[in-house]
C-alpha cells in the first residue's frame, strides 16, 4: 500500500512538471521565432524606414536627388 501511494505521488509530480516544462518551452520557442522575424524585418527594412522618414519632411527631396550621388 505504501509503495502504491508513493508511486501515485511520483506520477502526479511528473505530470505537473511536464506541463510546466511544455508551457516554458512553448514561450521560449515563440519568443525565438519572434526575434528571428524581427531580425529579418530590421535587416531589410531599417534603411528604407530611415529614407521614408527623411523623404516625408517639409522640404521633400526629389527621386533624382535621392538616386544620383551629386
Amino acid at each position, binding site marked *: 500500500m505504501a509503495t502504491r501511494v508513493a508511486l501515485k505521488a511520483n506520477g502526479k509530480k511528473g505530470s505537473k512538471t511536464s506541463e510546466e516544462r511544455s508551457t516554458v518551452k512553448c514561450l521560449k520557442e515563440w519568443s525565438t521565432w519572434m*526575434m528571428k522575424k524581427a*531580425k529579418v524585418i*530590421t*535587416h531589410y527594412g*531599417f*534603411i528604407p*524606414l*530611415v*529614407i521614408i*522618414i*527623411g*523623404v516625408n*519632411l517639409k*522640404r521633400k*527631396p526629389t527621386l533624382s*536627388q*535621392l538616386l544620383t*550621388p*551629386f
Partner: protein
Amino acid sequence: MASHIGVVPPPMTPAKGNEPKTAEKIDYLNLPCPIPYEEIHREALMSLKPELFEGMRFDFTKGLNQKFSLSHSVFMGPMEVPSQASETIKIPTAHYEFGANFLDPKLMLFGRILTDGRLNARVKCDLTDNLILKANSQLTSEPHMSHGMVNFDYKGKDFRIQFQLGNGALFGASYIQSVTPHLSLGSEVFWAGQHRKSGIGLAARYNTDKMVATGQVASTGMVALSYVQKVSEKVSLASDFMYNYMSRDVTASFGYDYVLRQCRLRGKIDSNGCTAAFLEERLNMGLNFILSAEIDHWKKDYKFGFGLTVGE
C-alpha cells in the same frame, strides 16, 4: 534710527572681502550633471585612439535636407584577420557602404549597409527631457553572428543611471554621481548569460578647465588610468596606463592632439613599440584629406592609409 544707519555702512567693506570666499564655497545641492559613464575616458580616447586605417578610404555625405542625409563610402585595403600565430594575416578587401542618417533634436536614426549584407543601425530617441533610449545593432546574414543592444539612460540633477539589455542575455547597469563640482564617481555592473561572466567596476573622474584625470577598475582584471592636460586652446597632451592583473598585461601610451585652423594632427607612442599618427587636413569647405600611419616595430607591422572625405 540714525545710529542704525550709521552702523550699517562699515560692515559693507568686510563683506566685500568675504565675497571671493563665498564664491569658492561649494554648493553641494547644485552640482553639475556628470559625463555619462561610458564616456568617462572621452578626452583620452579622442587624443590617443583616432580611427586608424590601412588602405584607401573615400567618404561622400550628401545632405538632402536639413535633417536627412545619405552617405556613400568606398574602402579598399587589407583587413586583419585574427590568428593564433604570431604573424598577422591580412586579406585584401574592398567594399562599398551605403548609409542614411536622420537627425532631429529628439530622434536620431543612423543606418549603414555594406556590400556583403551587414547592417549597422543606431537609434537614439529622447523619450522625455531626462530619459533617452538608445539602440545599437549589427546584423549579418550569417546565423548567430548578429548583435543588438538597447540602453535606457536617465539623467538626474547631478547623477546618471543607465540600463543595458543585449542579445545573448547581456544585462548591465551603471550609475555615476557628481560628488564635487570637479569630481564624479561611478560604478557599473554587468552580467553576460551566454559567456557565463559577470563583473563589477568602479570609476572616478576629476576634471578642471585645464586637465582631466580618470581612473577605472573592473573585476575582469582591468585597471585603466588616464590623464589629459590642455596645454593651450590648440594643443592637448594625453597619457594612458592600462594594466590587467589577471593576464599581467601592461600598456602605457603617450600622445598629443593639435587642433589647428586647417588641420587636426594626433600622434601617439606606445609601450608596445607602436607609434601612430593621424592627420585630417581641411583642403576646402567640406573637403577633408586624411592620412593615417601606424608603425609597430615589435611585430614589424606597418600600416599606412589615405583618404578623402567630401561633405559636411
